């Protein structure tokens, strides 16, 4: 019965979403107070029923109800409980339900945390989000119902893909979805503002904390995915430029640009139409990512053509959403621009540069991701686009952008004095340049031009972010506001990530060896001794564990235990790397194939500064958190609430 309850709850949620997308919107357009007032309760009700539906699916997993096809395909009695929970969003149908629940949560969140906004505005936002919800729930119910029954029910399930049986994968999808579904809120605000026809600075102030929240979740989601890929996929890569990664990265790039552009719109009332366009683009790219991942078009264009129902639905939905918003934009956005100026050397210029370059970066990734699909669909020949392409073209926009970050954050609004700025920044910049050229050379013995440039830029961004806080610590600098701290932290994180990426890419040492127990390999000053192999048994897998002792200058450092696992149900072999993590470097061992006579092929890696990549992301996300916590957003909210109260009583 429980799966049927889940199914019914989903249908009810869909009906509520239909009401939510119509009533509050019509109410707002006609000024009907009663209809406007339906927005918030409908949003909460929709979320409630989605949560019930989601809970029912989870219950089906926890009870091993293999009469539900989706459960039978993605679970097994021997699957540990925490992975049964993760299996709920481990495949197509369930992850779409998670998408919808996440949207429900955001919608409900807007309804709760928007007490200070005019009701008509809120109801329009909720209605726009309702339209999106309708699209997704229809998609689930028509093409991808997770509650479909299977008859006869199998005795046991086909198990969750072993690659996904990992703690990081339990939180990675929810984080990622919180991020890219979260961009539906700025999107909703943008559409609502265009419909209402009033785009004042107030609009940007409302949108900013929502955008930052979505952005920080997306940052963490992407970082978690990268970390997982690093230790789980077995060969120590942390970013593959795979279309699925790009699908999450494009909204992040545009979302980052949007945050910056929103700052200008709020503070100066400038770039209104550009900001709107980015709000539309960020969410459209989220939808596009969903299309790419969900339609099967990535596996092959032909697979898509063979079973086009799912892909076609999202493609049409995507077309409607993007088409409608751009049409609205074309009608409403042109007349918005405030006639206010700034000089060519000002914070405004740098932020404009930032958002243009970020959009170009997203465009480049989009081109490389969609290009092969489009060529394939139009019969222009099949072409592959991989890391070797992206790593090159991504530098076009990224190098100037990263160079500009450190300067831009110290440039005054409206009009800055280049001489004065030069005086202030010349020593830190020179320090970064000298350190960037010589430190890698001293530590690693060699340095290429690009590596020196990367380290210099990373260091420069780190130092630039710390100039003002350092002054403050010595009691000299100007007052630092909460939003400045947020910015400094986020840029500090960016600098750390850039350092990590550059150093890891340039100085990783990899070696593939055939080793027998008792043999040793030396790389990067570390000695790896292969001691023995042990059979190990997990709850739902058998494994062979290699035992390696790592020593440096004769002193034993640690023992690493990489595994080669074979899961009992899905029998493909999995590599579980043995990693010794550290701030300065990771030591990484993966077991390959058995070569016979006790010998194994082994991949050993020394990866300097790789932790900086993810640590930097965490620092960026903390920056986002500090930004949201700025009392400014709530003070104004309180003042507004008080003012509303006065008018209401008067």
């Amino acid at each position, binding site marked *: 019965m429980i799966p049927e309850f889940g199914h019914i709850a989903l249908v009810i949620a869909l009906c509520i979403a239909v009401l939510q997308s119509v009533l509050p919107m019509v109410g707002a357009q006609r000024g009907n107070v009663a209809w406007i007032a339906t927005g918030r309760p409908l949003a909460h009700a929709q979320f409630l029923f989605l949560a019930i539906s989601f809970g029912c699916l989870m219950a089906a997993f926890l009870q091993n109800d293999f009469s539900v096809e989706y459960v039978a395909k993605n679970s097994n009695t021997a699957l540990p409980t925490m992975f049964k929970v993760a299996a709920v969003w481990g495949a197509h149908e369930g992850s779409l339900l998670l998408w919808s629940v996440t949207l429900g949560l955001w919608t409900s969140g807007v309804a709760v945390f928007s007490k200070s906004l005019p009701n008509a505005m809120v109801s329009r936002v909720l209605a726009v989000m309702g339209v999106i919800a309708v699209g997704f729930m229809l998609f689930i119910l028509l093409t991808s119902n997770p509650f479909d029954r299977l008859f006869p029910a199998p005795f046991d399930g086909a198990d969750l893909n072993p690659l996904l049986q990992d703690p990081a994968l339990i939180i990675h999808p929810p984080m990622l979805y919180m991020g890219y579904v979260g961009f539906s809120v700025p999107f909703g605000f943008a559409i609502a503002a265009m419909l209402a026809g009033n785009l004042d600075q107030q609009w940007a102030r409302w949108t900013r904390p929502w955008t930052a929240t979505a952005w920080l979740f997306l940052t963490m989601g992407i970082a978690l995915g990268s970390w997982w890929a690093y230790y789980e996929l077995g060969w120590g890569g942390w970013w593959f430029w795979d279309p699925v990664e790009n699908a999450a990265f494009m909204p992040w790039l545009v979302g980052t640009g949007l945050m910056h552009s929103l700052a200008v719109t709020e503070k100066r009332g400038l770039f209104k139409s550009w900001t709107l366009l980015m709000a539309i683009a960020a969410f459209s790219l989220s939808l596009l990512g969903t299309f790419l991942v969900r339609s099967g078009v990535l596996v092959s264009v032909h697979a898509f053509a063979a079973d086009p129902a799912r892909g076609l639905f999202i493609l049409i939905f995507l077309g409607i959403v993007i088409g409608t918003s751009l049409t609205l934009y074309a009608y409403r956005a042109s007349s918005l621009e405030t006639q206010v100026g700034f000089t060519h050397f000002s914070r405004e210029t740098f932020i404009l540069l930032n958002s243009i370059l970020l959009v170009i970066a997203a465009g480049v990734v989009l081109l490389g991701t969609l290009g092969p699909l489009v060529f394939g669909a139009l019969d222009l020949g099949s072409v592959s686009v991989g890391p070797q392409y992206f790593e090159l073209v991504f530098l076009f926009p990224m190098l100037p952008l990263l160079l500009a970050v450190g300067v831009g954050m110290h440039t005054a609004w409206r009009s800055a004095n280049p001489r004065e700025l030069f005086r202030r920044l010349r020593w830190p910049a020179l320090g970064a340049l000298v350190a960037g050229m010589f430190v890698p050379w001293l530590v690693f013995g060699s340095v290429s031009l690009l590596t020196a440039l990367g380290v210099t830029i990373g260091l420069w961004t780190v130092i630039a972010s710390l100039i003002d806080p350092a002054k403050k610590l010595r009691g000299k600098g100007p007052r630092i506001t909460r939003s400045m701290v947020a910015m400094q932290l986020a840029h500090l994180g960016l600098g750390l990530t850039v350092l990590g990426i550059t150093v890891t890419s340039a100085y990783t040492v990899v070696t593939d060896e055939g080793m027998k127990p008792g043999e040793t390999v030396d790389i990067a000053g570390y000695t790896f001794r292969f001691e023995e192999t042990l059979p190990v048994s997990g709850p739902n897998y058998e494994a062979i564990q290699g035992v390696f002792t790592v020593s440096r200058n004769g002193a034993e450092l640690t023992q690493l235990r990489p595994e080669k696992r074979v899961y009992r149900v899905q029998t493909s072999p999995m590599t579980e790397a043995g990693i010794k993590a550290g701030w300065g470097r990771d030591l990484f061992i*993966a077991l390959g194939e058995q070569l016979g006579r006790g010998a194994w092929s082994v991949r050993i890696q020394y990866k300097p500064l790789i932790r900086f990549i993810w640590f930097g992301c965490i620092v960026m996300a903390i920056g986002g958190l500090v930004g949201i916590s700025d009392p400014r957003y709530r003070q104004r909210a309180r003042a507004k609430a008080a003012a509303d109260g006065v008018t209401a009583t008067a």
Partner: protein
Amino acid sequence: MIRATTFGLLIGLLGLSFTASAVDPSDKLEDPIQNELYLAITKEVRCLVCQNQSIADSTAPLAADLRREIRRMVEEGQDETRIKNFLVERYGDFILYRPRFRSWNIVLWLGPVALMVVGFIALAMNIRRRKSLPIDEDAP
């Protein structure tokens, strides 16, 4: 069959099907420069029977064959261009992860350049226009 479809969907979900990495120490070349070239090329060559994976990372038999073939050519002293030409002639453009500068692929290379040019023109135009507008000093 069901499992195959499910796996297909999961590939769709995470886009990654690296079930195990190819670790093949027997592939190593004596000459370090040749070894470097060999590694660089195998990382850029797509495994045709895998889901978005280079032959350097794939355990598929076809990938192993191709690795051997490339190793032989490197050992014979053939240069990168010649080896890649051979691969493209035999398998088409799809084999290389860095599209070659020809036919429709040109779009992939000129696109980013065009974006940069358009972006900077837009930036310059906007700044020029803003410069002539009044800077409102008393805005918040």
